[in-house]
């Protein structure tokens, strides 16, 4: 479904991704783990067109994404819930979800999808008319995921959905990710919480200073000696 080959991303003189190759198949949850600054966010930003790679190819369902504008990439069926949630704090929960469906013309379908998201995250329903800026961190993360789902993507990119959340909320978010996946969504999940991420994923990649260090079945990565030492606390 998604095929990335030899991707190079630079920020001025900083070489953030050095020939990264990553593959995601239909129906999978693939996780991308690695320390702060490894280049995980850069990879997601390159996929969704927010940064222009200097070299390499990015293919989504056989189509080359390189050089496309972010809004055209959304049209192809890819949705990205960015790092730090980045909800529109100046608007209501409802308006945030509405913007997630910006490209859709089927208002009935949009309404149904909003209902589905409220079933997934009942706390958002209670806060529908509330300003998104007044939500708690966990609720904002739910909104960010819900908003990303509103475009009806086939591939969902999640950047550190557990960041800064209490453990109970983290478990709730991961449970939802599995539910979404069971409903047929393919997910590329970036996480620093390697433990939970490897549990939730089918396959995983370990990124280190811009290169793929390991790539394997999630369960095998979780038992890999080096990975355990570096990312799972021994």
């Amino acid at each position, binding site marked *: 479904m998604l095929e990335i080959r030899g991707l190079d991303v630079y920020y*001025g003189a900083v070489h953030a991704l050095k020939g990264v190759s990553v593959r995601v198949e239909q129906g999978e949850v693939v996780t991308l783990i690695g320390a702060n600054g490894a280049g995980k966010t850069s990879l997601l930003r390159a996929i*969704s*067109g*927010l940064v222009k790679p200097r070299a390499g190819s990015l293919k989504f369902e056989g189509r080359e994404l390189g050089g496309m*504008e*972010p*809004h055209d990439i*959304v*049209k192809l069926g890819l*949705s*990205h819930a*960015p790092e730090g949630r*980045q*909800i*529109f*704090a*100046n*608007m209501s929960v409802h*308006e945030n979800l*509405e*913007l*997630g469906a*910006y*490209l859709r013309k089927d208002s009935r379908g949009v309404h149904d999808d909003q209902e589905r998201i409220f079933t997934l995250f009942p706390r958002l329903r209670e806060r529908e008319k509330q300003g998104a800026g007044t939500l708690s961190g966990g609720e904002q993360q739910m909104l960010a995921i819900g*908003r*990303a789902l509103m*475009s009806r993507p086939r591939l969902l990119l999640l950047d550190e959905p557990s960041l800064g959340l209490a453990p109970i909320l983290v478990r709730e978010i991961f449970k939802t990710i599995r539910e979404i996946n069971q409903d047929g969504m393919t997910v590329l999940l970036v996480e620093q919480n390697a433990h939970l991420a490897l549990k939730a994923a089918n396959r995983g990649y370990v990124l280190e200073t811009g290169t793929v260090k390991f790539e394997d079945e999630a369960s095998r990565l979780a038992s890999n000696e080096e990975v355990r030492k570096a990312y799972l606390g021994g």
Partner: protein
Amino acid sequence: MDAHLQTFIQQLLNGVVWGSIYALIALGYTMVYGILRLINFAHGDVYMFGAFMGYYAARLFHVDQRPGVMGTILVFACSMAAAGLLGFLIERGAYRELRKGSRTVAYMIIGTAIFAAFNGAALHLAGGAAVLFGAAGFVAGGIGGVFLERNKRHAPSTSRLTALITAIGVSLLMENGGLLVFGADPKFFPQILPSRELNLGGIMVNSSLLIVLGVALFLMFALRFLVMHTRAGKAMRAVSFNRDAASLMGIPTDHIISLTFVGGSMLAAAAGILVGLANPKIDPLMGIMPGLKAFVAAVLGGIGNIPGAVLGGLIMGISETLVVAYVSSTYRDAIAFALLILILLVRPAGLLGTHVAEKV
């Protein structure tokens, strides 16, 4: 009614009328700032352009000979459309190039503007020679731009300064272009609507003032409705808040930025015609002072904040009118700067501004 009170109310009304004109211009500054964190110094000149387009439309369609409502609507429509197109071109030609990292166009504009300014200030060249002179500046700026871009890697830290200088360049260009095309002599904006003095409970008001106020209020409420309740308006708010996140929603951010320039320019054009109704003398440099004051009004209300621009405009208009009426007309222009200094000292984010966000 007490005569003093009567004068006061009359002055207050004048202040509100001028305030609503400043508010219309300030809206354009604030919308563009909100979305690009850029002070579009050419905005006051778009207002001038709008006044001239209104003038020419009125003559073209003989509205000056047969004043009336339909004719007036036609004049507004033509002028706003032309100014909207100009705003679109300014964004497309100058600011978008900068945003995408190319500075060649910026240098071309700056080069032309410098030559144009020399022309205006010192040389007083006539038609053809001035155009040649400007073209020389364009070429020189372009060559300089390409040369600099070849030899120096794009340095993001300087891009904001470049944007500011480009904005000033566009403004100089429009003022000098205006002098060249429209002529330096003031023109008299025709009466496109019949007007008469009305007596509202002892207060004498010219009907055109009420029209100015009515149209300005209508446009402000229309803008508010569009921004709050339409798909494009919501997209605009999203892009203002976080451009990257907006693009991840599938919002074509460049289109929304264009739309913002078009909308702001249309409001400025409307203000230009309204000024023509209230104070019928227009000239190519008429945008400088009101543009500056409207900018101060936008800062006063909290730049980037739409209701703030309206509030700031009203405060500006009212205080200016009252100072002229009760203190001295010498201070007409000084009051704007006094207000600017005051707000920067007391509340730099502006009256309704919450925080000064930096766009990265």
